């Protein structure tokens, strides 16, 4: 739900999977569920290491 934190000015925002399971997707088989979590956390690490001038969205590319 990235519109909300970007709107209030959070500097680095990563789009998660869903509100009910931000870092994973229980509808997927366990390995893929874990892969979604890894992808989101790795994107967050990338965001931490990136210079930003304004509220910036980092998309982990997972639905």
């Amino acid at each position, binding site marked *: 739900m990235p519109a909300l934190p970007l709107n209030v000015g959070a500097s680095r925002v990563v789009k998660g999977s869903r509100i009910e399971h931000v870092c994973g997707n229980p509808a997927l088989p366990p390995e893929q569920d874990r892969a979604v979590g890894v992808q989101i956390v790795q994107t967050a690490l990338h965001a931490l*290491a990136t210079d930003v001038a304004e509220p910036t969205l980092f998309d982990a590319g997972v639905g």
Partner: protein
Amino acid sequence: MSEITVVHYLNQFFAGIGGEEAANLPIQVQEGPVGASRLLQNHLGAQGKVLATLVGGDNFVNEHQDEALDAIRKALRELSPAVLIAGPAFDAGRYGVACALVGHVATHDLRIPSVAAMYPENPGAALTRDVILVPTSDSPRDMDRAVAQLARLALKIGTGGELGPASTEGYLPRGIRRPGVRVKPGYERALEMLRAKLAGEAFATEMKVVGYEQVAGAPPVKHLQNATLALITTGGIVPKGNPDRLVRGGAKEWYRYSIEGLDRLDATHWDCVHRGFYIETVKENPNYVLPLDVLRQIEGQGDVKSLYPWFFSTSGVGTAVLDARRMGEQMGSELRAARVDGALLVAT
């Protein structure tokens, strides 16, 4: 006066369809007033008629924004009401954002005047200037008064009437100044304000600065391999039994819990306390909002040096901005003192 036509936007809860379990509901168009719209119809009386109620699940509208707004646009084109009314959303963040977005589509895209109601600190309140916003309290106890005010303003703008200033009409200031003539010239008013301020008396500014405080982003963490990271969540993760009695919403406090020696958070020892989202999935697997399992793997690979041995937790729903700022400052000063390089915060 002939009656004006109204379309009312509600979320799944106020339409009487369901709570968090129904929050993924796509946009529905229901004929006539439904749920809280019946109260609106009462307040409109014979002067206005609710043609249809548009209902959207809070998650759906926020997560599938384009699809949801396309459906709203299509419905509004077909119904062609004189005015769109949204909410009241009170302090519900997703609902407030949805009301602002729907109002924006009506007024900005389709030139249908719109009025919504929400708590002034609702994130939706800062999204658009196109929608007239009625301020409400943070709780549905304010429902009747808020809906009466929505109806009053809707009848005014729906008949092409001009609204007066925000303070006299009872809507939130939008930062719009209109030309007009005041009784006294500017320099006299300015001097009166200055005199009142110096004397410690009350005065009303003519240029109120509102909006969220802008906080500059922290500089990037250059070398993640040498970095210690902390985990924070507003998803309400607590040890089983909730020993600190973290509240489910409106939290003013945060708590720290040790993750030293843990590879993941298991459902036998950890729980979730939060009234803002459907928590059953997280109760079964708390790592979905505090991804300790993934971070231990990343730590093991050497991608980061270490994790701070405590995580910070609160329930991020209905917390006032001032409390949130204080909690953030408290967390920040602990992390700074402990020489933590960066923090990952998971919000739900």
